[in-house]
């Protein structure tokens, strides 16, 4: 097997994954809320949502060589799809004590717009979380890959896509709460979400999803499909002349990646308590690429690690030196690009090789 593939996939990788699962799914619930506060549980849940996005990004960037600078869009769409349901779960407990969401009352709307159809159904919301990002990615990807848009051109178009969506979602007329978005959530499945138990449950579900995403990614990249993907990244013309229709390979992994982002967004919104169009800002999507680059492209586990490191640092910096965070983020990106082309995992490997 390719030496770079042995990382998440060897005995050590399985041990780390098992230890992580045990820690988050068994030890943490025992310590919470007596010894670990709900603040940390929520922060961990949020970072794990980002880690799912990072793994999804690594599948297309690290393995298929397609750099998306619009993955924040799919994340936000998943968040909005689930946010609609969360808004309906508020019921008449909003500021205006009306059955309609507050922003609709404020806009003096008497009935729900068409796209809010069935939005009080959990399963409908869960379906939309998968179908909306997936369908958008499939249609966009179909035209982009069929026309053989590649490299930086593809990245720029994805960036424009998320920017355009952000501008659209800022408009009140879209029916998504304009620039305030959705907030003030109360319940999921009629269970209050502000309790420590509900927080812990959401955190554990997120952890399980992250582990599932890593396992799915592992299965994909170690299959023949994964070898074809990496071959597309390295020499696409050769893959085509071998008889593979590369468009369908790219489309498959691209759509899957978008769906994973949508699921992460749906898990993120109830934990963070807000979704608004700023999640679609181009800077957010660029940050996703930075997480993956920091952790180490083409390693899956590295992407999750990178999301953890950068967001851990972000939580620290924005509390202690809020004005310096963006400088620090820029510095990380420069340092990683210049000195750590393989990311943090590559650095660990280098130290090992030396000793």
């Amino acid at each position, binding site marked *: 097997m390719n030496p770079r593939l042995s990382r998440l996939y060897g005995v050590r990788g399985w041990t780390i994954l098992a230890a992580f699962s045990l820690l988050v799914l068994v030890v943490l619930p025992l310590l919470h809320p007596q010894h670990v506060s709900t603040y940390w549980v929520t922060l961990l849940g949020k970072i794990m949502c980002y880690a799912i996005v990072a793994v999804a990004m690594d599948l297309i960037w690290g393995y298929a060589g397609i750099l998306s600078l619009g993955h924040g869009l799919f994340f936000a769409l998943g968040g909005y799809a689930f946010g609609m349901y969360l808004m309906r779960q508020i019921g008449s407990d909003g500021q205006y004590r009306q059955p309609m969401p507050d922003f609709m009352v404020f806009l003096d709307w008497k009935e729900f717009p068409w796209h809010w159809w069935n939005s009080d159904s959990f399963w409908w919301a869960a379906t939309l979380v998968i179908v909306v990002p997936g369908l958008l990615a499939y249609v966009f990807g179909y035209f982009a890959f069929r026309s053989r848009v590649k490299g930086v051109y593809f990245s720029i178009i994805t960036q424009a896509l998320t920017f355009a969506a952000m501008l659209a979602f800022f408009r009140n007329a879209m029916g998504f709460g304009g620039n305030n978005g959705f907030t003030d959530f109360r319940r999921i499945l009629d269970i209050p979400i502000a309790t420590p138990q509900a927080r812990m449950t959401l955190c554990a579900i997120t952890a399980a999803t992250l582990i599932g995403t890593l396992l799915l990614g592992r299965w994909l990249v170690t299959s023949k499909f994964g*070898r074809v993907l990496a071959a597309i990244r390295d020499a696409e013309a050769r893959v085509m002349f071998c008889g593979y229709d590369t468009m369908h390979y790219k489309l498959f992994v691209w759509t899957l990646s978008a769906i994973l982002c949508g699921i992460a967004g749906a898990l993120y919104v109830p934990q963070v308590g807000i979704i608004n169009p700023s999640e679609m800002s181009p800077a957010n999507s660029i940050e996703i690429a930075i997480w993956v680059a920091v952790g180490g492209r083409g390693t899956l586990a590295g992407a999750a690690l990178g999301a953890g490191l950068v967001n851990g640092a972000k939580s620290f910096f924005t509390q202690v030196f809020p004005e310096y965070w963006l400088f620090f983020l820029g510095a990380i990106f420069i340092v990683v690009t210049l000195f750590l082309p393989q990311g943090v995992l590559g650095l660990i490997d280098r130290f090992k090789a030396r000793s």
Partner: protein
Amino acid sequence: MTVVATHPTAIAGGGGVGGSHVATGDLDLTHGVVLYLEGISVSFDGFKALNDLTLSIDAGELRCVIGPNGAGKTTMMDVITGKTRPDAGRAFFGQTIDLSRLSEAQIAHAGIGRKFQKPTIFERHSVFENLELAMKADKRVRKTLFAKLSSSEKQSIDETLNLIRLQDSANRAAGLLSHGQKQWLEIGMLLMQQPRLLLLDEPVAGMSDEETERTAELFLSLAGKHSLVVVEHDMAFVEKIARKVTVLHEGGVLAEGDMNQVKNDPRVIEVYLGR
């Protein structure tokens, strides 16, 4: 800009993940012709890379194509493999398969294998994996996701490894091979595809004399079962393997015949051999 808009109409009906393998049917060789190009013209920004090129290759033939730089040799390969669409003319594989309607992947699937001028292999994959990926199989996404290497497939990879003498390097990254070994690996990948027609663009460039010798033997042994079109600058190599030679010049056929005929053709001497 890397946006190529010349993309095939034939796959439009094959939407959905991996659903684009049109039924190309069996290769029909009833008239003994494996490849027929008729009146092919291609121009790039006014430059005529191919100008009314007509050429036919018989089944089982080993054809050498020579010609000075810019004669259109690589463009001809691009047209046959679907990379470039001709402005005019028709290209047929066997009696029935119209190449101008198929994508690169469909043409490869139909049975045309191509070796590039610069060895193009998957450098970060192992030698074994390179052959595995090239191997003739159902190459749609769904099948590839669940593909498992059967023992007969593994055996055929091992046989090819022996043939290209890379059995000791099977687990090495292909990027670590020498230039000549990369050429051999790419030839091995072509053979794994089990093509009916092999297009080989400068297959012995960068090979040692011994490797060139062995390549000549290999090609001669392949002819008959496969059809081969070899584009080569190395005249010694061409003389060694050539039965019939086609000389291209300015996008068309200048001369065709056995090596002696071609060598003594005054027009050929003027544009090519005499220099």
